[in-house]
């Protein structure tokens, strides 16, 4: 029983009583459980990094930092470099974020700012959530059979007329960055749209009221008030979407061409770290597996840096706009 000097001191009629011993026990148990859950995540991440690191150690020792700057991946010569894959990963993800992020925020605005009736909003939301549920191999197939043939005439035209412009510098000969980035954009769109829409919905009605009360037009209300207010939430969605794009494997392995090539052209084939891992693992010998582990570690580091940077930007906007310390 808890220490309770008040029972006897207070009026005889009070119904107040201290928590029982079992209440305290439940409290302590729940606390221990919560700590355990949190700790297990830390341990899991630590274990994965450790395991990856130790498996990659031989490759790290052999190739050193040259692995990150090297541009050839040759199993026979045992020369391994992932610069083209790093480039391809970042470039395709960035393109996807540009397209999918922009569209996602646009959809979030469309759904939450009174453009559509509540019923239509629900329908739209369901459809967008459905996009997230489509397996990535289906996206890959769709990309091969629908998107690439669809893109080809436009890409050819762009290359012919504007071939001097680096973005259109090569022909689209099937798989390449453009279809890969477009499919990635569609894949991250639900994440960005859902999280941004939540950020917009969280804005109290009184803020919208204040903005309209100042005599702002709908466009001014959205652009000058709602968007900055939701910015930290939108950024969170962007970071999550970008993280997903960095690690996306199957659809990219099917669409990007898997060619070690560094090019700014949207139509050139390329490769990403995740797609390299997926397509090379099945037939890899021991040396190559160690190199692949190293590549996985590089991908992990990139994802980590992106997340930390995203968090920092988010903190900054929170401080700037919302005054939170």
């Amino acid at each position, binding site marked *: 029983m808890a220490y309770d000097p008040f029972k006897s001191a207070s009026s005889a009629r009070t119904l107040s009583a201290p928590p029982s011993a079992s209440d305290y026990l439940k409290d302590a148990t729940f606390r221990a459980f919560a700590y355990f859950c949190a700790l297990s995540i830390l341990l899991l991440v630590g274990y994965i990094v450790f395991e990856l690191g130790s498996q990659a150690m031989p490759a790290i020792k052999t190739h050193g930092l040259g692995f990150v700057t090297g541009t050839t991946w040759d199993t026979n010569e045992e020369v391994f470099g992932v610069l083209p894959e790093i480039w391809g990963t970042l470039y395709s993800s960035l393109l996807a974020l540009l397209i999918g992020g922009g569209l996602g925020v646009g959809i979030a605005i469309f759904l939450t700012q009174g453009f559509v009736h509540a019923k239509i909003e629900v329908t739209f939301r369901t459809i967008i959530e459905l996009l997230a549920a489509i397996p990535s191999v289906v996206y890959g197939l769709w990309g091969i059979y629908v998107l690439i043939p669809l893109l080809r005439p436009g890409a050819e035209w762009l290359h012919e007329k504007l071939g001097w412009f680096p973005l259109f510098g090569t022909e689209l000969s099937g798989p390449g960055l453009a279809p890969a980035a477009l499919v990635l954009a569609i894949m991250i769109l639900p994440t960005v749209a859902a999280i941004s829409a939540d950020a917009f919905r969280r804005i109290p009605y009184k*803020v919208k*009221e204040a903005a309209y009360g100042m*005599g702002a037009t709908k466009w001014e209300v959205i652009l000058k008030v709602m968007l900055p207010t939701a910015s930290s939430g939108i950024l969170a969605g962007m970071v999550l979407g970008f993280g997903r794009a960095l690690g996306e494997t199957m659809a990219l392995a099917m669409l990007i061409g898997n060619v070690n090539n560094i090019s700014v052209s949207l139509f050139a084939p390329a490769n990403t770290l995740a797609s390299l891992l997926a397509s090379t693992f099945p037939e890899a010998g021991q040396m190559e597996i160690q190199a692949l582990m190293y590549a996985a570690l590089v991908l992990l580091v990139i994802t980590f840096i992106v997340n930390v940077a995203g968090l920092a930007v988010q903190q900054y906007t929170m401080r700037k706009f919302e005054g939170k310390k």
Partner: protein
Amino acid sequence: MNNQSELDTFIADKYEPQGPVVLDCQVNNIYYGDFRAVRDTNIPVEKNKVTGFIGPSGCGKSTVLRSMNRMNDLIDSFRFDGQIHYHNQDIYSKKVDAVVVRRYIGMVFQLPNPFSMSIYDNVAFGLRLNRFKGDEEEMVVRALERAAIWNDVKDKLNNSGLSLSGGQQQRLCIARAIATEPDVLLMDEPCSALDPIATRQIEELMIELKQHYSVALVTHNMQQATRVADVTAFMGVDISKGGRTGHLVEMGDTQQIFEDPRQKLTQAYVRGEFS
């Protein structure tokens, strides 16, 4: 008062304004969907005066106030039947855009609602919206000074408006509303979240503001009405037919309303005897 069927059809005596009227509000009916929120309420807001709205909760005083700059247009089910003349133009005319109305008739809300941006940007918001060409900084400082918050914020104009305390936020919102010097300022219980000192400052501000502008003020605080309102409108609510339709009961000089009310309902309310 006991005779409720009399109340049903009760229409307040017409208030004869003593000065020029800037905002002549003639409400026949205000509906939210099928619900009739307000009926038969004529309230002229006079130039360079503070017009106070008092009455029990649910009598529709905020609804009427919010109709005066078409804030209620944000609510889909809102329907306004009547006219509100602003400088002899009906603001509910089809030709008039609500956005334009709100630029001339500003509003301060019950709960502080600064934007997620710096204190300076909050106050400059309206100036930028209205494409103000003059010295923006000077206007921002002036608005902050007049809203009695300059001393609190002068060293942190770049901090977020949301970093301030509740009372400071409300004064910031008042600064934001008066920065563009709107012709009429509608205030919907602006002091309900403020401590007595800040309330006093806001009341002084209202008295100062009315020298140049006209103010309409909804308040639950009757002392506040006696302190700042020149004219007071008392609204009551019909609960007889199961609905809750509010309407004007009596309007007159503040002194007359509080000291010599003509209607029994007003009498009971200002003396604190509720039926």
